[in-house]
């Protein structure tokens, strides 16, 4: 039971002013696996991340129901600091770097909860090995790095916490396809060599499913589908997240257009 990974059970979250963002969401990230949660803008993906990492309070959100446990220990009441100490760290949506701190200082902030030790310096070197470009630009303010470099920095910063579960929120956002592919290759490598569990929250369904073992689809605050990544790719809900969407929806929109075009004409 101690190695059961992340378990989210029947989670409901609401923000101040009674807007319900998640309704009865359940999810499992077994140890050593890559799991993805797909969904469009506003489906509740980031709320899920905030709930797991203890950051809901920043946005006046509250867990109304349900539990979150990590390796058997409940974490839904834990502070953000405690969650990081439990071994969960995130690459937040929009990267959320410290733009005025240098790249290296950003990385050191990732190790904020760890005790001071020479190991931190070793980990710093390891990040520079993974992302040589960060090593070159370690003295530059993070705000001046390019989009891709910033995303690498965000990943590196999370790795500095030595997480057992890494949560990546919208890793692919605004990045060139090449960079996205490179980042995901790295995540898979970390997963294989270090048995790091990874939760990938994505809008880009294609990339996410190619690089994960298991997937969920979140739609307006509820899980609508789950399954092996391979099988999910054929699912109509997932198809809708692809270019062009599912045939059904498109046909419905087109019918609407015809109806009104005729009315105007």
């Amino acid at each position: 039971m101690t190695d059961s990974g992340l378990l989210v059970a029947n989670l409901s979250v609401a923000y101040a002013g009674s807007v319900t963002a998640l309704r009865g969401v359940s999810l499992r990230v077994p140890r050593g696996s890559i799991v993805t949660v797909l969904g469009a803008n506003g489906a509740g993906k980031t709320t899920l991340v905030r709930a797991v990492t203890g950051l809901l309070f920043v946005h006046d959100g509250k867990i109304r129901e349900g539990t979150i446990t990590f390796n058997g220990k409940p974490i839904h009441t834990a502070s953000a600091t405690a969650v990081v100490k439990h071994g969960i760290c995130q690459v937040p949506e929009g990267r959320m770097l410290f733009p005025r701190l240098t790249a290296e200082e950003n990385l050191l902030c990732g190790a904020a909860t760890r005790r001071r030790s020479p190991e931190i310096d070793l980990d710093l070197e390891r990040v520079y090995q993974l992302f040589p470009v960060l090593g070159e630009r370690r003295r530059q303010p993070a705000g001046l790095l390019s989009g891709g470099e910033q995303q690498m920095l965000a990943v590196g910063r999370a790795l500095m916490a030595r997480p057992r579960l890494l949560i990546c929120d919208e890793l692919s956002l605004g990045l060139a396809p090449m960079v996205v592919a490179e980042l995901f290759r790295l995540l898979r490598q970390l997963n294989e060599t270090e048995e790091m569990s990874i939760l990938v929250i994505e809008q880009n369904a294609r990339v996410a499913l190619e690089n994960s073992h298991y997937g969920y689809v979140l739609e307006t605050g509820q899980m609508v589908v789950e399954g092996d990544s391979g099988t999910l790719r054929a699912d109509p809900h997932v198809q809708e997240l692809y270019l062009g969407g599912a045939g059904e929806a498109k046909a419905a929109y087109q019918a609407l257009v015809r109806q009104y075009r005729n009315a105007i004409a």
Partner: protein
Amino acid sequence: MTTPILTASDVTVQFGGLRACDGVGFEVTRGELFAIIGPNGAGKTSVLNAITGIYRPLQGASIVYCDRQGRKHELIGMKPHRIVRLGIARTFQNLGLFPHLSVLDNLMLGRYIHQKRGVLSTGLFLPAAVREELEQRESVERVIELLEMAEFRWEQVGSLPYGIQKRIELGRVLTMEPDLLLLDEPMAGMSVEEKRDILRFIFEIQRRLGVTVILIEHDMAVVMSVAERILALNFGRPLTIGTPEDVARHPEVVEAYLGANGG
């Protein structure tokens, strides 16, 4: 034929070293539904911000708007509130509503440009000010009815669900009675059913007011079905302009959307 309602050429917006949009140009015909697509960060919203005067494009850019009387206005260098008064209204990606005001107040603000009474007559509660307020209130109530929002009239906007807020924002641009409507992802995060409601609403406005619509939208199914012409952007640069069929076949567009697949 008629002159285009909006002609943009060589619009470049720069922040520090980053070019949010780079040499974008297009024409929008009166009455048309024009769509702008592109991946996140492609510069779609920057184009709208340049049109509405929030961003100042670099030298050489030109955005000419032709109003209902046929007069032409260069929008670059004009203050946003002046541009709005020419008959251009827009919605925001992350909602441009005033969350602590009631639904009614938000919609009444849409009538702001159509009201004339200043602080003197409203403060003294002069009959003229009261009459004007009542007239505008009636026209707002018609929109409330159209959007089926009578029950929320007095609620604070911020306490309502996201989908309703999106609808209120559309309601507000409707009360403004614009000629050119800029919609920034009005359907983000919605289910197919809700998207159809919004589309129905857009068509309804077009039919009633004959407005021209520029739509930014992520959902390809929507864009490919409803847009008459599409401008595709990527990394701030224009890829192509054309009918949905042309754009869908354009190799660079396919690459921008499917590129990650290739690895």
